[in-house]
């Protein structure tokens, strides 16, 4: 042994020698003892004690043998059976070898070691003996961080926390468990990745991320790491809002009356699929890049058209194949962005429960199709409208318990939220078995507000009356409630759904309840556009809103000065507006017949004159950024196959602009 004798070497030798003597006598007795009894504990402890001290002195031979013996002893104890004679023999041999090693270290050995490799060879034999024994549950319960998914108030700020375990960290699982405990003391720890248990027996240097719901400032959370060793590169920052909606299973249980109908097949599938957490932003970037690839291919196709025909054919076939692959890639990224409907509904039970209690109502919430997936953008944009519809149903739709009893209904009002997929659409329904909408009252209100002329009254069906509820400012209640407010914001709900390229419908039956149906695109990012030219610029109109295109010769009707007229389209007289006028652009159309795009918004059909209809293109829509997101009539931007940026128009906004300019003219 080359190193200088340890200060307490003599203490170690005395202690180890005594432990090993006891160990030998206990091993001899073990065959007569109760299997798995207390004697095993004592044997284990003695070997372990010798190992710990030897490690501190640096006696690697002792450590190797003791460690392997310890493992074998642990396994033999777990067998709960009489040990085999060969095992006891091997352990006795190990004890003898340990004694020799200790004596050798103390310098009291009578002869120099004949074989320096003996300890390692013995350790290997011990390890092999352990290996062939069956694995049984560990005698000591491993720590398990189990329990329900944590729940935090959606209003509490979220912090993204990240830290690294130092490379020298020898127990990353235990180290990150300490961090986890610390974070739990500062707020509600919503996520931690990897979990401490997953880091057990791993090496240091791991980066761990966590999501913490807390009212404490980031600096305070960062400072809490000061007292934790082996933790480096701590980063604490406010989490983006996208992380905010958290499932609230505990709240659901608490509410008691609220149950979810599980979509078993889908849940099973999610369970077996291994998942990793990916930043939403990373997926967005990936989607952007997949879209760029698509654009690039579109540009290639354009370029190939200029080649001689025999050369072009071959290129086109290859480009087509590339395009299919790129489309597939784009689709897969889109799918990765899908978020289950349940992420919207899981935060509702608590809100419903609180609201119902305040109103003296009892509500049973049933969620169907929680596993149906929608694009994250749709989910985010749907959060407020859905909350609104649900609150509205509890506040205005469902009756109080007393009312329901007197009407012979069940005491509990039923509120059903469902989602189901139909081809490339998702249908979301919010239905209740409450009082339903009052058609008579809606009609009267519409007349009072001047949005319905009394002479049209006989033509309005009962179902059409319900749809009046979507008009701004219409409320069936005269008193506004603190909770849903006056006018209940159904117009806002409709607007939000339409911004997503969706539709909303309402059916109702007096005394039986009502049902809102939201027809939503699976994804909002891909849009089929009608390209139109006005004032030398190209614009896109969503094909979902286009009813028809037509041509009309204006010169026959008074020339260029018109701003609003009527056209006969498909046997129906519709308002016609000039897109150039709405945007204050010069019209560059030659005299003669002009093209019109006929659109439908809010059940109103109208026509827009343009200079030229250019064609159709499928494009990846990108949201508007400030400040141009404030401009009415714009829905988003995209990049065309030829690389040109394009503004995509919002038909609903255009219609509102047109109506407003009409009113201005009327007032002037």
């Amino acid at each position, binding site marked *: 042994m080359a190193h200088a004798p340890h200060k307490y070497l003599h203490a170690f030798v005395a202690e180890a020698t005594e432990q090993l003597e006891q160990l030998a006598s206990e091993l001899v007795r073990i065959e007569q003892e109760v299997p798995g009894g207390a004697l095993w504990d004592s044997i*284990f*402890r003695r070997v372990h004690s010798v*190992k710990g001290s030897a490690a501190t002195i640096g006696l690697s031979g002792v450590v190797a043998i003791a460690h392997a013996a310890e493992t074998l002893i642990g396994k033999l104890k777990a067998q709960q059976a009489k040990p085999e004679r060969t095992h006891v023999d091997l352990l006795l041999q190990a004890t003898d070898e340990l004694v020799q090693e200790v004596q050798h270290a103390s310098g009291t050995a009578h002869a120099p070691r004949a074989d320096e490799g003996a300890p390692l060879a013995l350790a290997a034999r011990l390890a092999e003996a352990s290996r062939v024994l069956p694995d049984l549950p560990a005698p000591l319960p491993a*720590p398990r961080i189990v329990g329900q998914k944590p729940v935090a108030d959606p209003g509490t700020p979220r912090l993204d926390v990240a830290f690294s375990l130092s490379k020298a960290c020898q*127990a990353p*699982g235990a180290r990150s468990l*300490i961090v986890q405990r610390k974070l739990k003391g500062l707020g509600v720890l919503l996520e931690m990745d990897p979990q401490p248990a997953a880091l057990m027996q791993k090496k240091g240097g791991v980066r761990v991320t966590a999501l913490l719901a807390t009212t404490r400032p980031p600096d305070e959370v960062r400072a809490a790491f000061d007292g*934790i060793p082996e933790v480096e590169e701590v980063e604490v920052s406010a989490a983006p809002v996208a992380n905010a909606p958290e499932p609230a299973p505990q709240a659901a249980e608490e509410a008691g009356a609220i149950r979810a109908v599980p979509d078993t097949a889908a849940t099973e599938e999610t369970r077996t699929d291994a998942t990793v957490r990916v930043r939403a932003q990373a997926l967005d970037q990936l989607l952007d890049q997949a879209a760029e690839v698509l654009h690039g291919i579109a540009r290639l196709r354009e370029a190939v058209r200029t080649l001689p025909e025999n050369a072009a054919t071959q290129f086109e076939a290859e480009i087509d194949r590339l395009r299919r692959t790129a489309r597939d890639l784009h689709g897969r990224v889109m799918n990765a962005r899908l978020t289950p409907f349940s992420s919207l509904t899981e935060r509702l039970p608590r809100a419903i429960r609180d609201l119902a209690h305040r109103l003296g109502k009892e509500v049973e919430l049933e969620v169907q199709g929680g596993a149906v997936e929608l694009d994250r953008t749709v989910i985010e944009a749907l959060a407020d409208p859905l909350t609104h519809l649900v609150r509205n149903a509890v506040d205005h739709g469902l009756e109080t318990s007393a009312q329901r009893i007197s009407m012979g209904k069940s005491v509990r009002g039923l509120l059903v939220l469902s989602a189901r997929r139909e081809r490339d659409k998702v249908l979301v329904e919010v239905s209740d078995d409450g009082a339903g909408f009052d058609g008579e009252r809606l009609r009267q209100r519409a007349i009072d507000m001047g949005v319905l002329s009394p002479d049209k009254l006989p033509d309005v069906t009962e179902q059409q009356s319900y749809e009046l509820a979507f008009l701004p400012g219409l409320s069936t209640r005269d008193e506004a409630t603190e909770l849903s407010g006056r006018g209940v914001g159904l117009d806002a709900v409709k607007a939000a759904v339409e911004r997503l390229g969706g539709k909303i419908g309402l059916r109702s039956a007096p005394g039986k309840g009502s049902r809102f149906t939201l027809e939503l695109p699976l994804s909002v990012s891909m849009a089929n556009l009608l390209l139109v030219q006005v004032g030398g610029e190209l614009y896109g109109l969503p094909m979902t809103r286009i009813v028809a295109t037509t041509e009309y010769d204006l010169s026959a009707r008074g020339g260029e000065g018109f701003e609003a007229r009527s056209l006969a389209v498909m046997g129906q007289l519709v308002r016609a507006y000039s897109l150039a006028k709405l945007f204050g652009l010069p019209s560059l159309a030659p005299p003669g017949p002009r093209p019109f795009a006929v659109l439908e918004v809010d059940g109103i059909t109208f026509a827009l004159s343009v200079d030229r209809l250019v064609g159709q293109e499928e494009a990846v829509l990108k949201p508007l950024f400030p400040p141009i997101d404030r401009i009415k009539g714009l829905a988003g931007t995209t990049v065309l196959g030829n690389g040109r940026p394009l503004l995509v128009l919002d038909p609903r906004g255009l219609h509102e602009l047109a109506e407003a300019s009409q009113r201005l003219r009327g007032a002037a």
Partner: protein
Amino acid sequence: MPQRRVLIVDDALFMRNTLRDIFTGAGFAVAGEADDGVQAVNLFRDLKPDLVTMDIVMPYKSGIDATREIVQHDPNAVVIMCSALGQESLVMEAIEAGATDFIVKPFRGEDVLAVVKKVLGE
């Protein structure tokens, strides 16, 4: 700052001696030493040390059980587990029982002191 008092718990005299040297060399006072879990809990109540170093595998009462009792008695107790390599699941159990932190054997004096100073906020 008053001298910090430490209670050393380990069933091996060798380990207790080694730890005592490390602590006294760094200006700590060794309030006491225990060689099993039962003694550790009793001494903690009597001595009210600022810090405990706790072996895990010990006769009569394990370091984990002793830690649990100490923390129940004093939730602010600072208990540092002395574990050996390969005992991570035991260390995690000890942390869940309330241990403040841990060191892994074999350790050097500076390793022990670094952890101790960190958890004491020095």
